[in-house]
């Protein structure tokens, strides 16, 4: 309870946002008013449910070429194969369901890794002045300069040839995670700089509050806002990267993802256009969902952008 009183007695600073329970409630109310944000959330939830339970109802196992034997390869959409089949007889509907699970996993798990690294590096870079801060900033800038997407392709390829092929989608998760953090850490670093200059933090410091206390009571709550927004947008970005990676033929073999289906569809787009069409629409919808969600969260959590 004593902490609560301290929070109440903190001088009200316009730029500093104390995230108390009521403020989360305010943010949620504001989010609910934002139709496109709510639509984004609904899309994301629908896909999560779809990814968890959909495979229970998938007509075929992932990558199953069963239909080929029944002479059903390259069939246009029908009741039996709602999204049609591709040249090897893989049921596009079935693989799209399995793909939802893999794509969401790639998007979310890679974002989780990137966010953790981003938080750690960003906090360290924001907190340490001098040599360490300089080196960390240099590393972040280095990642802004190198062609990240191309290197993701290269690492995926070289790793599979040189080291090990059996990681499946988790290899992609790892690589995307390892390349995805610099944006987050850059923002966190800036936010820490901003918050720690605020007068009352200086005052708390003068009163002898420890760095850890300041970190957890003031900086973490403030940094959380941009992190949540960035993470949501990063999931969208990671899914798009996954799709390109598989389309270009750098994905691990024999996993059902939307990108893999699109790759197969593109090769025969003139004869079997549906193979690339349906998984592509799913990609657009899910990515749209995360982008709308991210924008909605940004609006709801950032009072500075609104009146």
């Amino acid at each position: 309870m004593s902490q609560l009183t301290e929070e109440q007695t903190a001088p009200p600073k316009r730029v500093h946002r104390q995230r108390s329970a009521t403020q989360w409630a305010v943010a949620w109310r504001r989010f609910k008013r934002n139709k496109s944000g709510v639509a984004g959330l609904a899309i994301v939830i629908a896909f999560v449910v779809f990814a968890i339970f959909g495979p229970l109802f998938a007509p075929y196992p992932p990558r199953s070429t069963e239909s080929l034997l029944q002479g059903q390869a390259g069939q246009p959409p029908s009741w039996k194969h709602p999204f049609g089949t591709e040249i090897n007889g893989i049921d596009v509907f079935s693989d799209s369901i399995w793909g939802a699970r893999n794509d969401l996993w790639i998007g979310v798990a890679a974002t989780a890794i990137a966010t953790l690294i981003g938080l750690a590096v960003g906090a360290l870079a924001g907190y340490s002045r001098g040599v360490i801060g300089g080196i960390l900033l240099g590393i972040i800038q280095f990642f802004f300069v190198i062609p990240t997407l191309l290197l993701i392709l290269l690492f995926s390829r070289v790793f599979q040839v040189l080291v090990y092929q059996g990681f499946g989608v988790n290899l992609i998760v790892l690589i995307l995670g390892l390349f995805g953090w610099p944006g987050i850490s850059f923002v966190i670093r800036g936010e820490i700089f901003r918050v720690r200059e605020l007068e009352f933090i200086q005052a708390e410091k003068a009163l002898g509050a420890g760095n850890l206390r300041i970190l957890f009571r003031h900086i973490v709550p403030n940094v959380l806002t941009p992190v949540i927004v960035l993470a949501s947008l990063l999931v969208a970005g990671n899914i798009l990267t996954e799709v390109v990676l598989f389309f270009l033929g750098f994905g691990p073999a024999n996993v059902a993802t939307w990108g893999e289906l699109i790759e197969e569809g593109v090769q025969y787009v003139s004869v079997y256009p549906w193979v690339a069409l349906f998984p592509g629409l799913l990609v657009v919808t899910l990515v749209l969902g995360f982008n709308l969600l991210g924008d909605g969260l940004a609006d709801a959590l950032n009072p500075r952008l609104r009146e």
Partner: protein
Amino acid sequence: MIPVFIGVTLFTFLIGNAAGNPINLIRLAFKGTLPQNVYLQLVAYYHIGENPLIRYLYYLWDLIHFDLGLSITSQRPVASEIGPWVWTTLYLQLSALALALLIGIPIAIYSARHQHSKSDTTITGIAIFGYSTPTFWLGIIFIYIFSFYLRVLPSSGAVSAITPWWGNWTLDRIAHLILPMTVLTYVQLATIIRLLRGNLLEVLKQDYILAAMASGLKERAVIYGHALRNAITPIITIIGLSLGASLAGAPGLETAFSWPGLGYEFTQAALALDIPTVLGITVIISVMVLVANLATDLVYGFLDPRVRVS
């Protein structure tokens, strides 16, 4: 700038030596059977046997002399191959960017001035689709419609091999450019509208806009002279930075259209494990991005007096 340059070159050097030395990686492309004469050439070129620091310095020395080694697939110097690829990529990216700015600026202004109106909602909706769509996938759909179905535009490459489209080599280039440029323009348009609209909404609330109106200026003069200039200046930075990224950022789109630019060629080289080409492209792109960043800083300083170096 220089530390980052050293970082980048050190990074590509380390990738090249990930398997001990570059020859071990190159060997992969030959599936294990490296001819003896090629092997000896490579040993000499990469100074195998020297310690890693010396080899790195040799690498830097070669780089400064624009020597990026021999491409494994084409057996030609990587440096002379990259030149046309850079040009092909820039030609696509810059024409799309110019078009996107031309269309995007008036749309963003309209959207910001009619915030929450139906047309604003439609515009932002179309924009958010733009950055939620994989470019190459949109490209494939365009190819299917315009090349396979309607047969009005070419589906691949930057130029025809034998007979030109529309009977003329200039028109032929334009015909090849239309589809990929349209896709890319749409995506860039989405980004420009989103950023510019957001900035304009902020700027339009500023007192200097009201003050300019209060001095009796025409609304057009206020919007274009004050609001737009203030809103677009920070976007120049983002465009400058993303210009670097867009050098490499479209491997999907370039591959969909077999557009012989850096992204497409990198993809081909990486699939063939043509390590000298892959690392050559990486270094070249990084250096170009560094230069673009520097140029952006200078332009920004010119546009915004507040950041001018005193």
